């Protein structure tokens, strides 16, 4: 892969790196014939971000430059730290950087970022490729009953009313109003926490279509990161969501060159415990106490449930790994298939699209090279699957 990014867009890439860094520690890069995808997943597997840069974002774009196979683009993973080091201060990059070239050096297994800056200065970063994986999440974006388009200022202004110590937020959405509340874990001493609530009217938003009233709760850390992203680029924010427990998708795009999806899992919280401030009574409190004990240690935190089988029955987790029909598997065992396992079967979260059926071993230099090379062979392409649960393929427009 080789591509050139003009100065004005380098800032966007910088902001992307900073936003994604607040989600996960590893950055997955994939080059396709018409775009480049950057993706990451947080450690708790409750938040996923994907930013797609279309061909027209670049001044030069060759998705499979240096590839040994004609139609294969690049699929790799680098450390988020490396990415942050390249884009240290996105605000300054606007004025400093004239051009950025990203290209693969297959021999040394490095991704080379070269920035041509003002004053004739050239900065080159030789970034080690950690692995040749790719990853993909499956989520619903289009056929959702609830969509809100918001100038991002509104949401960040609303958030300004909350304490920085709050870590989760609940949105109670109806056609009359959107109420934002800090979510209080039922394990916490309620006499010590401030409960804050802000109510916003639909007319505040650019678009507000609610077909199914609902209450969703998600973590603030990633929410703040994506709001900061939208704010830095001065773009509105779209919220697509369904019901309690289903992931919420936030979309930021400029209508032409790039599109960012931020997907946060929502928890299936006991809504009685988080009713609006006006409703509490002692009776409700004791009711909650009881329901807590039956669920045992099942925390209400949004999470791709790994050990609580109850949640696996519902279609609520973030990553429906794609089911591989038997016959396809047989055909592909000879290659380095990108085998995806449904998490249900193993009861534990699998690495998405593991391109290696060599058992894990310490990464020696030559090992990485051979693994890498095999990624350029005909790899398993999820798009070839028929009848799989690809609700929304992120790289189709």
């Amino acid at each position, binding site marked *: 892969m080789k591509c050139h990014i003009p100065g004005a867009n380098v800032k966007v890439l910088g902001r992307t790196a900073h936003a994604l860094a607040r989600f996960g520690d590893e950055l997955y890069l994939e080059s396709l014939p018409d775009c480049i995808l950057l993706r990451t997943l947080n450690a708790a597997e409750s938040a996923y971000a994907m930013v797609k840069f279309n061909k027209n974002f670049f001044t030069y774009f060759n998705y499979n430059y240096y590839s040994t196979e004609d139609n294969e683009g690049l699929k790799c993973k680098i450390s988020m730290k490396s990415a942050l080091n390249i884009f240290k201060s996105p605000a300054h990059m606007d004025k400093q950087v004239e051009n950025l070239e990203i290209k693969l050096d297959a021999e040394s297994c490095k991704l080379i970022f070269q920035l041509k800056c003002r004053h004739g200065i050239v900065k080159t970063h030789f970034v080690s490729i950690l692995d040749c994986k790719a990853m993909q999440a499956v989520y619903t974006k289009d056929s959702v009953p609830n969509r809100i388009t918001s*100038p991002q*200022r*509104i949401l960040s*202004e*609303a958030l*300004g*009313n909350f*304490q920085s110590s709050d870590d989760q937020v609940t949105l109670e959405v109806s056609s009359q109003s959107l109420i934002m509340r800090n979510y209080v874990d039922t394990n916490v001493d*309620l*006499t*010590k*926490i*401030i*409960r*804050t*609530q*802000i*109510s*916003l*009217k639909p*007319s*505040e938003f650019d678009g507000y279509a609610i077909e199914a009233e609902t209450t969703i709760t998600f973590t603030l850390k990633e929410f703040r990161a994506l709001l900061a992203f939208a704010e830095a680029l001065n773009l509105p924010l779209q919220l697509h969501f369904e019901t309690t427990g289903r992931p919420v998708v936030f979309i930021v795009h400029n209508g032409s060159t790039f599109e960012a999806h931020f997907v946060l899992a929502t928890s299936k919280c006991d809504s009685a415990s988080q009713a609006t*401030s006006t409703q*509490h009574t002692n009776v409700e*409190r004791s009711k909650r106490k009881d329901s807590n004990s039956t669920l045992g240690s099942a925390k209400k935190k949004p999470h791709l449930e790994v050990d609580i089988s109850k949640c696996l029955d519902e279609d609520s987790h973030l990553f429906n790994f794609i089911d591989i029909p038997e016959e396809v598997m047989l055909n592909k065992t000879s290659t380095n298939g990108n085998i995806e396992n449904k998490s249900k079967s193993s009861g534990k979260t699998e690495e998405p699209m593991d391109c290696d059926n060599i058992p894990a071993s310490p990464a020696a230099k030559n090992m990485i090279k051979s693994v890498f090379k095999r990624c350029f062979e005909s790899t398993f392409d999820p798009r070839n699957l028929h009848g799989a649960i690809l609700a929304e393929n992120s790289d189709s427009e």
Partner: protein
Amino acid sequence: MKFRALMVDAGPMREFANIVTIISKLSKECILRVAADTLYFIVSDDNSGPAPPVLWCEIPQAMFFSEYQMVGLDDEHKDIYLGLSSGNLSRSLVTLKTAKSLKMKLTKKQCPCLTLEIEMPSSTSQQTRNVTHDIPVIVIPRKMWSEFHEPNTPDPDISIELPALKQLRTTIDRMRTMASEVIIWASAAGRLTLQIKTDMAKVSTRFKELRVEAFEGPIDHSDSETESQANEDMSRICYCRVDAKKLSMFLSADQVTHNRTLCSIVHKKLVILCLHTEENVRLQCFISGIVY
């Protein structure tokens, strides 16, 4: 017990937020005493027995609230005493500076709460946004009320008007990096000196031409190791050694618009700083003298 009050004017809202911010800097917790005419914020030292509270603030409610209703426990116990986290209150009031109105009331949620309902203007439309904060409070039992009375302090030896608090704070903050205690000297001749002394340095910032409100001298220095100040009549000078950090925290009250601040000193024992604002708010801070 009932309490409900409404504030709609921008000036009082800003002042109220500033006052609460200063209190939150001085202490994590405070007492809010709600009386018929006045709201009091009281901060006590943890070790206080008969010692005065660290901070005593009186806010005449008529200058701040357009509506104010309270009902105490009974005829003999007319006020309401609430304990709360000053940090919680201060953070909730951060947006007050651009708000349209503030309603405060005592409510019972999962526990007794001071509920703030703030009406915020929207940045994008004519609509308003309603923000509600439920701040948990503890209702202070009657038997503890005696600990929170207006402090009874000995008559000060001198009361002198302070120069600009901002200027004082800048200097004290520089001094704090060099020493943890500062000596405040005040003379009936209108001079005030802030001084630090360590092995490495002795630094004195001297103000003159300040207004002396009262002087109950002469001061007896016979028992102490006071260095005599050249050309000065020691009987008209008193001093007190205090914790520099506490002093600096009070001086952050420069954010509150005020008419004047008075510094009263009980020689070697106590420093009382009293700030008066245009809305008749009286903010008093008591700093005990450090004696070796």
